[in-house]
């Protein structure tokens, strides 16, 4: 019963934005790496003009994928960009 109450109290957010500092802290990565990922064109911040960029959840997902490809498979940034472009193309081709 207590568990059920707890479940209903938890707020689940489907839409959120994180600042670059929040992303760095959350994923345990350096700001410079995120900037390089943006410069490679892998991820776009919410407002490109802002000096301290923010990221929506789609961009955060893409950042996490980039990070895991880098850490787990040793892929460099241009390789990550290529891999993600190809994966996007596979998804597009799978569409009914």
């Amino acid at each position, binding site marked *: 019963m207590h*568990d059920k109450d*707890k*479940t*209903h109290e*938890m*707020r*689940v*957010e*489907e839409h*959120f934005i994180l600042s670059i500092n929040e992303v760095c*802290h*959350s*994923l*345990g990565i350096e700001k410079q790496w995120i900037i390089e990922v943006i410069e490679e064109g892998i991820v776009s911040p919410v407002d490109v003009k802002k000096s301290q960029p923010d990221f929506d*959840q789609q961009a*955060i*997902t893409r950042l*996490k*994928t980039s990070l*895991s*490809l880098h*850490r*787990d*498979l040793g892929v460099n940034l241009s390789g990550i960009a290529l*891999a993600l472009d190809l*994966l996007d193309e*596979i998804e597009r081709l799978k*569409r*009914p």
Partner: protein
Amino acid sequence: MDYKDYYKIMGLDKSASQDEIKRSYRKLARKYHPDVSQEAGAEEKFKALGEAYEILKNPEKRAEYDALSLHWQQQSQASSQHNQQTSGNNPSREQQFEDFINRVFGQGRTQHSSDFESPSDIHARVQISLEDSYHGLEKTLQLNYPFVNANGQRIDKRKTIKIKIPKGVTDKQQIRLKGQGGTSQQGQPGDLYLEIHLLPHPIFKLEHKDVHVFIDLFPWEVVLGGEKVVPTLGGSVKVTLPQLKEIKQRLRLKSRGLPGAPPGDQYIHFSLALPKSISPDAKKLYQQLASEHQTNSNTY
């Protein structure tokens, strides 16, 4: 913990060289990495592969594992020959294996080299079915997260949490539960980020919030239209088919996709099916249709 055959996991012979082990890891890591893999169960396979490689790439750990494996093999051969049961004093093979794993992986293995304070946010993936997304789902999760204790040791902490996945989440969508992450050294609660993955469905194909279903129609159904029972995520519905202008025409069932603001739609795609067997009488009717088409071919 069940014994794992690391050579089998890596597709290698027990006599594999260190180079072969490295090559096999790199190849399989690309195949099973959850962010690129198209295989079912990729995440579990990737984790098992990582564990196998961690042991086999290190000659000392590999030697210890080989010795233990040989010992277990000899033990089970001996007990099957003499029909003995393992005495209560000897720990089971499973316990010995667990002890070995805890010894090896408890040695402060660092995956990320970082001078940062250990992040207290938890990032995890959850796999759910399309039906789970349609109805919403309460799910209990077991989450592991790294924690740096007061001695500077990196340990794996586990957290169990029951959450409510909202209706209508799409594939690869992230949801955030503030304050439900791990705890930092200072005792601050972090946030929990869940990446939802929707499992492929045998009947429905998902595109964002829209659902696509594929129906076979017999030639007379294509021409005459009529009622057809069609599956949807909310249950089967009766649809009145119009006379189709072409087989590529698709029908839209509004708001029958994933819930949301706005909800997705369901699209029905058609393909032509032929009856399993065509009787002589039916064949005559087809021949009539064919000759009528030839006669009136100027109308096409």
